[in-house]
């Protein structure tokens, strides 16, 4: 058959593995070119979109693409070890091939609704992975956006994903404010201590900002409540969701919530859109 089918994956090669935290690794993935060389990307994407990665025989799973589309050399995936497939991925060595298909889902509206806006990114733990794609996209198209504020928290300093990039690059950018926090006091940490929702309230961000949140469900819940107390409306807050997926194209039925499929209609939703869905996520 000469037609493509999205269910038949491409091959990607893991060309770099960065240990971010005790349970998060970031994998760099390149394509195999027609001449056999390993370089470039398997496909293009927009910030917030996902890809299905798999090790045949182990399983397939949906992962957010953490690198920005402005990176023309490779794609990156920050993956937390929490199940069978992710444990296998964590055991990989450089040079390992994986299967990859995508891009799937919608993206953060970086070219429409977010353009020209002051942006507030709020992330918890591995929740930084999908937002990092947007943050770097914004940094690379700096003129198109206003002020950028990043509030990022984790259990401890060691659990902050992309710590080096945050300190070495984001913190040195003009017009970007980075506010880091960890859950409990820790030796060698002189930054803020406390949970993300409370920290956001303390920071009292300007109501003109458009907010992008990603993190554990409980963090999202309390942060959203806090933002509302501050006067933010649901129409200015975006998040990205994660559910069990198999096909990634809205057919297998698994990630169906209400009349939406998270894989196809999401994963990015504005909170007022989520209000129209049954409370199942």
């Amino acid at each position, binding site marked *: 058959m000469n037609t493509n089918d999205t269910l038949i994956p491409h091959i990607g090669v893991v060309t770099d593995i960065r240990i971010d935290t005790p349970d998060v690794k970031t994998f760099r993935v390149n394509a195999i070119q027609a001449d056999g060389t390993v370089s470039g990307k398997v496909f293009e994407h927009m910030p917030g979109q996902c890809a299905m990665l798999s090790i*045949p025989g182990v399983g397939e799973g949906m992962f957010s693409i953490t690198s920005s589309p402005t990176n023309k050399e490779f794609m990156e995936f920050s993956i937390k070890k929490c199940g069978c497939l992710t444990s296998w991925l964590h055991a990989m060595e450089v040079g390992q091939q994986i*299967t990859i298909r995508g891009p799937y889902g919608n993206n953060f509206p970086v070219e429409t609704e977010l353009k020209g806006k002051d942006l507030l990114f709020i992330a918890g733990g591995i929740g930084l992975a999908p937002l990092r794609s947007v943050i770097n996209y914004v940094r690379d198209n700096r003129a198109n956006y206003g002020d950028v504020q990043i509030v990022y928290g984790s259990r401890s300093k060691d659990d902050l994903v992309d710590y080096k990039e945050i300190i070495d690059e984001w913190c040195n950018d003009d017009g970007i404010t980075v506010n880091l926090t960890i859950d409990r006091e820790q030796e060698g940490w002189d930054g803020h201590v406390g949970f993300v929702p409370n920290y956001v309230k303390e920071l009292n961000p300007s109501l003109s900002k458009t907010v992008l949140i990603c993190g554990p469900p409980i963090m999202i819940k309390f942060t959203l409540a806090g933002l509302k107390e501050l006067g933010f409306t649901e129409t200015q807050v975006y998040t990205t969701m994660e559910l069990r997926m198999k096909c990634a194209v809205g*057919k297998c039925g698994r990630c169906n919530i209400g*009349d939406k499929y998270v894989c196809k209609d999401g994963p990015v939703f504005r909170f007022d859109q989520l209000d129209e869905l049954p409370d199942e996520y």
Partner: protein
Amino acid sequence: MLKISLENLGKLFDAVSEKQTLYIPTDREDGASEYKKYESGMKLSKNLNTIRSAKDFFFPQTENLADFKMEGKKIEVIDIREESEDFVIFGVRACDARSFTILDKVFLSEPVDSYYKNRRDHGTVVTMACTKPAETCFCGTFGIDPTAPEGDAACWSDGENLFIQANNEKGQAFIDSVASLLEDGDTAKLDEVKAKTKEILGKLPLANLSTDAFGGDTLMEHFNSEKWAELSESCLGCGTCTFVCPTCQCYDIRDFDTGHGIKRFRCWDSCMYSEFTKMAHGNIRNSQLERFRQRFMHKLVYFPSNNNGEFGCVGCGRCLSKCPISMNIVKVMKALEVK
């Protein structure tokens, strides 16, 4: 209309099966019927419907998607797809024929599922009008007329003759391929049979079942209904309703290690199963109530919301007959429509 005497039906089947694979519903020893590959002498079932629906032909219970060869750090993807051969499914009822247009909306929407499309392109559906609807039938609720079935070509029986008419080019090609066996026939008796069937349709116990209370704009109202607890209380959480349903199309993708390589296959799945939505870090539907609700909400609310009001049910009545505890979409609709 073109016809063939019922006595000569075997000749028609023989002629068709000489050129392509033919499937017909035929009776098993236990009295139930199932679709089987036609072999000379096989008799067409008189039963109204098969236990398994006809969706198997386009969306089989298990199918291979791709093979993988693993060698060291290398992975080779092997595209195992092959062009399907032409085949005919004969004797499909109006309800099942409509189920194909519902499945089309899922599998043929972008990105097109090439596995499904391949079979759909190569399959000819020849339908058979109903003359003896059962008490469990409610296809009329979904605007289906079992005396005028869809499909590529449609057949009617008046007890003596089988009449056949094409609904499209594919159906016409089918008729042309057996033209030598067909002759022009008078439909006077057939019209009587149709009228009689219509009279019975009006008397069916579920003839007045209505979809008025359902559709996309009723999402929150029905989702939050208190009635789900009672409706789902004795649900066994099995997949019978899902697997006999002609429109249920959820699937799982899994890998199977043959020892010589990996086969990635997909298989039917059921939202009634406990681990359907289970992820490494949790499950969004932990109770049978939630899973039961998902199945019926999908058919009665979510699917119409995404498909111009078309419901994900064709009223074939299989779940009414087969649910081990006799809980089904009709009982759900009747309970939910009462405010």
